[in-house]
């Protein structure tokens, strides 16, 4: 029951909003924020789960051709993604308060809340059909938000890139899912040991992997990402880059690796190449980029490439560090994009060459920005370091060559993050001076603060995270078994 409440509370809030008049803007904002915050508060209750306990609930749903259940579950793996979603969701709703278009505020809030429900559904789904439904359903709110609620022609075009790319990924995944279920006759695949023929396993894993690579995204399937991240309004991009980008990696861990361990090993060499390509390409592209949001988009590509490396190095340290890295990246990306959104609101441009020197007039904004940027480049004491360092230690055991290549990107990270920070904050004050002052307002400060607190908490005390995750894993199928025991 509590799980259902957490999943559907945002959606119910969205439906309630539909009955509030469009002009009652303060009511709309209050109701939306109350719903999102209540969701976050309720999801905290699952923190009491130990590493080997789970909240599980299953209701028969479809029988006949195949079996499917409404099976939702929160366990030691899923709880972190649920918390990330509810936290970033609440923060994004609050950030949406500064949304300009009075006519569209209600639709904007409704779709953000609906998006949050699809994300929560995805991270709690234990049944493959349920999982797929949320996987595809999340296209709709993002497509509508981009096409109707972002207010620029570029965003409307980006909506198509997003829809077609992710739609293609979804259909390829559907192909794999149906081929799998044709063998199992049930969508309840968690914990099953399948007796698939090697070719069949190879094909189905390939279908899953392509869909996950597109969603994350990883090189060379990332071409939808820069436009989507750059032209989305800040609350949306915080949720897409902070949370949705984890969907593919989460599903790899929860479904694909435990189900297809052999094919995963067969495909690992290629996936490792793509991972390193993402890491390096993302870093280099970020260095050459002068649009600050596109820059951060490429850092996302680089950081999540590192998680792909972590998973397919098949080392226990690297896999659990990969999970830490995902959560950490979720917090960092959400914080960075929200802060960049505030900056864009103030200076009216995203081009780093058009402005600078904000720290002179906005020391608090600069301080917040500094924490987020330093976390992204992997400064010890912040969450980015913990994830990155443990991944590199772990994957060094099995993949020293790829790991050394990834180390280059760690150096490059300092280059692009310093470019971003110096370009915005340092130097003489340049660019058009806005009327309302540059400094963060109280609301803006308080809404980013929880994300930064999470970054610092995970950076100072990564042991808390490790204690929460199960440890009963042995090489060499480390990651596959992690998925198995947790799923």
């Amino acid at each position, binding site marked *: 029951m509590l799980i259902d409440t957490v999943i559907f509370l945002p959606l119910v809030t969205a439906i309630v909003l539909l009955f509030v008049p469009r002009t009652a803007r303060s009511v709309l904002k209050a109701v939306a924020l109350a719903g999102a915050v209540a969701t976050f508060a309720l999801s905290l209750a699952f923190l009491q789960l130990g590493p080997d306990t789970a909240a599980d609930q299953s209701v028969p*749903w*479809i*029988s*006949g*051709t*195949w079996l499917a259940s409404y099976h939702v579950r929160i366990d030691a793996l899923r709880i972190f993604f649920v918390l990330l979603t509810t936290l970033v969701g609440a923060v994004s709703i609050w950030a949406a308060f500064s949304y300009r278009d009075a*006519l*569209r505020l209600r*639709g904007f809030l409704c779709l953000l809340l609906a998006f949050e429900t699809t994300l929560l559904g995805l991270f709690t789904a234990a049944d493959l059909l349920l999982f*797929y*439904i*949320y996987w*595809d*359903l999340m*296209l*709709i709110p993002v*497509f*509508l938000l981009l*096409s*109707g*609620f972002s207010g620029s022609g570029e965003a*409307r075009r980006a*909506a*198509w890139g997003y*829809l*077609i790319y992710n*739609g*293609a990924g979804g*259909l*390829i995944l*559907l*192909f794999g*899912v*149906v*081929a799998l*279920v*044709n063998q199992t006759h049930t969508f309840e695949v968690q914990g099953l040991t399948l007796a698939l023929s090697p070719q069949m396993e190879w094909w189905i894993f390939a279908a899953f992997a392509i869909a996950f690579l597109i969603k994350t995204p990883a090189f060379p399937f990332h071409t939808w990402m820069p436009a989507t991240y750059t032209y989305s309004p800040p609350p949306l991009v915080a949720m897409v880059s902070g949370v949705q980008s984890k969907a593919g990696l989460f599903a790899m861990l929860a479904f694909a690796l435990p189900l297809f361990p052999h094919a995963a090993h067969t495909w690992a060499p290629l996936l490792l190449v793509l991972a390193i390509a993402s890491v390096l390409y993302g870093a280099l592209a970020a260095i050459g980029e002068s649009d600050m949001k596109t820059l951060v988009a490429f850092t996302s590509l680089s950081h999540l490439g590192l998680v792909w490396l972590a998973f397919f190095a098949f080392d226990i340290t690297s896999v659990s560090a990969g999970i830490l890295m995902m959560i950490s990246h979720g917090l960092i990306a959400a914080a960075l994009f929200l802060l960049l959104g505030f900056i864009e609101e103030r200076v009216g441009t995203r081009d780093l060459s058009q402005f600078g020197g904000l720290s002179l007039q906005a020391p608090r904004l600069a301080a917040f920005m500094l924490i987020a940027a330093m976390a992204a480049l992997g400064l010890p004491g912040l969450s980015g370091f913990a994830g990155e360092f443990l991944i590199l230690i772990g994957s060094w055991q099995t993949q020293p060559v790829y790991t050394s290549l990834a180390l280059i990107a760690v150096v490059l990270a300092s280059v692009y993050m310093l470019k971003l920070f110096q370009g915005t904050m340092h130097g003489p004050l340049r660019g058009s001076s806005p009327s309302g002052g540059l400094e963060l307002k109280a609301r803006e400060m308080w809404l980013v603060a929880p994300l930064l607190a999470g970054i610092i908490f995970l950076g100072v005390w990564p042991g808390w995270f490790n204690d929460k995750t199960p440890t009963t894993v042995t090489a060499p199928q480390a990651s596959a078994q992690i998925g198995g025991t947790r799923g």
Partner: protein
Amino acid sequence: MMPLGISVSWPVLAPLSALAVGGLVIILVDLVTRNVHRNVLFGLGIVACLVSFATMLPLYGQSLVTLNGAYASDRFSWTFDAILLLTLVVTFLLSSLRKAEDGGNPGAFAALLIFCTIGGMVLAGAANLMILFLGIEQLSLSLYVLAGTGYPREASQEAALKYVLLGSLASGFLIFGSALLYGAAGSISISSLAPVAASLNALFVAGFALLLAGIAFKLALAPFHTWVPDVYEGSPLAITGYMAVAVKAAVFAVLARIVYTAFGHDSVALIPLWVVAILSMLVGNLGAIRQQNLKRLLGYSSIAQAGYIVLALSGVGRQGLSTMLFYLIAYAFTNLGAFAVMALLGDGADTYANLNEYRGLYFRRPWPAAAMALFFFSLAGIPATAGFYGKILLLQQALSGGPWGVAMAAALIVGTLISFYVYGKVVWNMYAYPSDEALAPTGNALAPWIAVAAGALGTLVLGILPQIFYASQPFLSVASR
């Protein structure tokens, strides 16, 4: 009393008879009372549908044949009859709108619609080639006239002319093919085709090819689809909706009966059908890309959707039938819903067939826009809609159907991806533009709202709780003859 030695079971024929009586009553009322409001006549039509449905209820779950085995009433035809009656009711609702076209003669319009539906119901139960031809002709002849009821609009006359010319050609194929099949099998009963179908002699192949071509024309499968865009665009709005749903359902019923009684799913004779399906999925979706007229767009979409539905026949065993029925029901709710939204906004006229009129609709009329988005998402197969569950059933069916099945599954995936753009464009228009442009006024009558609500409810319920469909198991047996 059995003249000519024909055994007649009136309860089995009651649904048809009830409709026929309804049609005649409408003509009489129209003759006797001059200037009666047309909605009275349409109301009578809806009453006839309800009576017909009431007489269907006792037949539920039974497997009966009558007219010496020529006409079957089984769970299979029962479900199709229900779809046809639902479509007819919706068509009456949409035709009752202020600006809806009826050719200036509502009595004939209503009666023809009813006779057309009788043809469809005959098709759903047709167990021999003669009845099949009768059903198709009854259906088509009425529709030729109905397509022209947009008179004096030129596009409507053009639609009627194109439809009748090409349709007669297809009928020629059908009757010639039937004659050859009779020659090959020595009987006009569909079940007697089974032995010759296995032997594949030349007479049978020629006959079946012609029959298939005729059926493909009626179903608008590529490459027999060229009439669709113009006929869909020119016909009155409600008639286009009726064509898209009822004609497809009725002809699919008879195609399924032929395939399932006469062939195994892996029969070589069916390969042309699979090729035609693959072509339809691609041609329909590609053709829809550039359409600016929603009726044309849905016409192309119906080509693609017909291709999808053929896929249901490729699988092993009776499950294909249930898949086909599920998809057809889903398609009926979705398409009728979409046409109802168009009719609602244009108050019966097809103003809102123009895609540009949807710009910013969400900000002027949020609820119709949301309903339209739901229907187009269902057509695209987005989860939590009936179209999605239908599509995974189709995929499952195809993937268990050998190499041709896999090829069709691949075409389904490619076609669906293209359709994301096609259907997405409609939704995009409603949400992406500001609402300050000067656009046509919108209607808000009750009758289409009923159809919209029914369509939305059906689309959502079948999408979220597909088990409802299985619980009634209406489809598992095709009556043996």
